[in-house]
């Protein structure tokens, strides 16, 4: 992985550690990822390299990193990228593909309920006019779900919603407003709940 090798080149050889290694006391460092706290000492929980980062005037943050990224799980409040698999008058089912900018090795399943599609006029939402199967959607996790349901997601913000959609003709559509997209081939307009893309991500 590129970033770890560049880290290794810039710094002196980093210390190897294995699960159970005592790294330091909780008075010297703040625990980060890949470590755990026990009886006032910080121990490693992964096999990898010890990384100490100074962030501001607080104690340095100590964490253990590996070459390969460990599996990430979607957490409450995380922005996720998902693909719509089926829709239904009450909700849309999606497969979660990315958490933030990290791709997931395994697809997780999620649900976007009708009342979570947008913030205004929640009862007048029609899922058929907000999403279609195959759309790529940016959503936020609101709940890990319970026994019956999967991850619950919401698109009730301006920056959340459909980012990539294909028209019935098969071409990738261009967004024209927060609720419509247009096909460049047939110039037909279709209804979607469109995400407002940040200005810095748009091509000039």
């Amino acid at each position, binding site marked *: 992985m590129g970033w770890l090798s560049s880290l290794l080149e810039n710094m002196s050889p980093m210390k190897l550690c294995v*699960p*159970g290694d005592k790294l330091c006391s909780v008075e010297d460092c703040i625990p980060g990822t890949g470590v755990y706290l*026990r009886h006032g000492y910080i121990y490693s*929980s992964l096999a990898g390299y010890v990384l100490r980062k100074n962030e501001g005037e607080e104690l340095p943050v100590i964490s253990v990193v590996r070459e*390969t990224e460990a599996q990430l*799980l979607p957490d409450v409040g995380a922005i996720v990228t998902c693909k719509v698999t089926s829709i239904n008058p009450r909700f849309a089912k999606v497969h979660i593909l990315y958490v933030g900018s990290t791709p997931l*090795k395994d697809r*997780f399943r999620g649900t976007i309920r009708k009342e979570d599609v947008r913030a205004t006029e929640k009862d007048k939402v029609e899922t058929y006019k907000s999403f279609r199967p195959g759309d790529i959607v940016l959503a936020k996790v609101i709940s890990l779900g319970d026994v019956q349901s999967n991850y619950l997601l919401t698109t009730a913000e301006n920056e959340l919603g459909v980012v990539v959609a294909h028209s019935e003709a098969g071409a990738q559509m261009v967004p024209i407003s927060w609720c419509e997209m247009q096909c460049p081939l047939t110039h037909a307009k279709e209804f979607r709940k469109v995400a407002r893309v940040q200005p810095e991500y748009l091509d000039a």
Partner: protein
Amino acid sequence: MAGLELLSDQGYRLDGRKATELRKFQARMGPFAQADGSAYLEQGNTKALAVVYGPHEMRGSRSRALHDRAVINCQYSMATFSTAERKRRPHGDRKSTEMSLHLKQTFEAAVMTQLYPRSQIDIYVKILQSDGGNYSVCVNAATLAVIDAGIPMRDYVCACTVGFVDETPLADLCYAEESGGVSSLALALLPRGGQIALLQMDARLHQDHLETLMEAAMTACKGVSKVLDEVVRQHLREASMLTRE
């Protein structure tokens, strides 16, 4: 086996080891790239392969998901060619189910499952050649596989099977010793804290000998942990040399 002595007068066992000596250890981490974590381990003639998948979404019945931690799903099986006589039922028999349950209990003690609520971690162990100490070799192989998968653990889990013969504890039993009527005890230990993850015994032993046997088991497990440690560090060094190029 009337003529064979499990422990000779000079202190040598059937395979020439001393009473506290462990068998020859050979391990490899990450032989399979397609699984999240994998490890191959040989202890003497017992060979085991461990594969770890996860953490991922709960498969099957979602009602078994725990709201605050991950579920560890273990499966132990033996290859049909692993024993002297071809094994008729490699999985699903009572012994395999019991072993799977023991492995699950062992790893629930060591893996930090609270970091992955509502998800599942699968650990599959297969014995390719069985020569005694099956449970211990499985635990050691699975520890290496879990470390290879990058799943956080409190500490290594090291296991060893010990037996009692002629007032002497024997460490790391082989099949001939196990079936020779030795009272065997299997211990899974988290070496740094000295915490016992699992202790299993189903033979008869006098109460006075239990203390000695457990001491011997803990010493043997600490020996195993040193070897596992060396394997992990060597693997990390090799992996870092590859990324540096």
